[in-house]
């Protein structure tokens, strides 16, 4: 973190956390549910598969259950709308803070190829894990903490504990 100018451009983490906490509280108060992200990916996958092979989704349990709950369209889901908002919000924020930049970020000692493969595998693992964990860092860990859900807090500890446990083996990718 030699680049001071960039570091100071970000919001104070405690202020950001406080605002995020208020937003989460407002979300729970208004909608009775927390924030999330991976659920939107799930909707996207189901919508895609349903469009390509409707016969398949009509038979496989996982799709069938989801489609039963979303009779109109698998994309008509709260989290899909929320994530569209996230993309808009982050884009606006990047625009204002001058951070819009098409770039492939990676550690100093690895090639772009390695970063592409690791991002793809990392994403796949996160997507798979979020299904098992019934939510990701937002939906399970953060929102779970707000309502003091045992499952949410367990998942949170497993995510961060797991990442710390594996960090050593992948240090060359980042440091």
């Amino acid at each position: 973190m030699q680049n001071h100018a960039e570091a100071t451009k970000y919001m104070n983490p405690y202020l950001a956390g406080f605002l995020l906490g208020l937003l989460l509280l407002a979300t729970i108060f208004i909608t009775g549910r927390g924030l999330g992200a991976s659920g939107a990916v799930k909707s996207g996958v189901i919508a895609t598969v349903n469009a390509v092979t409707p016969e398949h989704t009509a038979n496989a349990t996982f799709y069938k259950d989801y489609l039963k709950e979303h009779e109109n369209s698998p994309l008509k889901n709260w989290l899909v709308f929320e994530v569209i908002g996230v993309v808009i919000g982050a884009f606006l924020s990047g625009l204002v803070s001058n951070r819009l930049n098409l770039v492939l970020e990676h550690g100093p000692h690895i090639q772009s190829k390695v970063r592409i493969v690791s991002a793809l595998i990392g994403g796949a693992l996160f997507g798979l894990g979020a299904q098992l964990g019934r939510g990701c860092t937002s939906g399970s860990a953060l929102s779970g903490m707000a309502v003091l859900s045992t499952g949410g807090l367990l998942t949170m500890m497993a995510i961060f504990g797991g990442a710390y446990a594996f960090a050593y083996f992948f240090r060359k990718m980042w440091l």
Partner: protein
Amino acid sequence: MGPLVPDIISNELNFIVALVIGVAFGIILEQAGFSTSKKLVGLFYGYDFTVLRVFFTAGVTAMFGVIALTHYGFLDIGLVYINPTFLWSALAGGLIMGLGFILGGYCPGTSFCGAAIGKIDAMIFIGGAFIGVFIFAEGYPMFEGLYKAANMGSPQIFETLGMSQGLFAFLLTVMAVGAFWGVSIIERKVNKVDKPDPTPARLFVPLTAVAVVLGIIALFLPERKSTLLADVKDKEYVSEYQFKMMTPDELVFRILDEDKKYVVIDTRDEKSFAAFTLPGAVNITPAQMFEKQSKKQLNIRGKKYVIIADTEQSGKAAAVVAMNLGVDEISVLAGGLDAVKSQILNYQPPTDLSTRQAKDTDLFRKRAQVELAQLIEKNKNKKVVKKEVKRVLGGC
């Protein structure tokens, strides 16, 4: 009052709300620096603990908010989505996500932020996430066993640990403050520079003070529901309240007269209610009065409520709970249902009918004995349809 969906905000409008909340979520995440994987994985190599600071502060803030709103009756926690606990699936899923985090450098929410400002690796991560969900969906029969194993329902952590909510909130706050302090030291060591501390003392000290005070308040802020329900068991506590009483004669008269202004609230448990109750009575136990649905039923404008229970004392106790929850226009059935049974349903005419009043009462009770019994019999077959309010389904 809360959650506002679906009564105050319709399910359709909720999608617009989702979009607005999402925009705010995106702005905060991006402004905090969650749109770059370098900052995110800094947490795991000790050079940047922004994630921990933001995450913990947000969690603790929202937790205090939820506790306070529930305590003051603004939020019905029974209607809020509490992530269910499936022990093994939660742990296995978490570990897999942990590996995904360190490999991919993002989590789903942050990857959308990164992608929005042009991070190609974040876009690839999202593509990966689609593949991951697809693998789960296709392999679901294989994962199903693990996915559904050790279902513990939706407990809250303090219940699981067997401590009070306040104590857990306090401990979590202390842990957060301790972590904030500790990671600042680690961060300075790892970076080997005296870089400006992101938590200068002048900010950190007051923040710590606020957090600790909040934690202590939570510690001594007992859960309102359990306190109140325990208090009303005490006769002396209940006797401090003033009640409007209604005699069995008046109540039965109003029932037979089909007086629509009065709603009879039967506060006994469901079993007793099913076995015997007065015609038209609504079953709401003191514990249920804290639920949003019951609050609505108890606050219909222009209605007066008659609280009934087996004895007068338990009726008064239930009335105290209702009064504390802001229900006006309450009367308590004098003598309780026991009195209705002895004075009317099993009416034995007294030997002395010398006064005018005694004669009138006797006439009324004789008539009521027959008519009330008929009406009860008629109502027994009427199935009382209880409106169930479902919890919101959340999660990912």
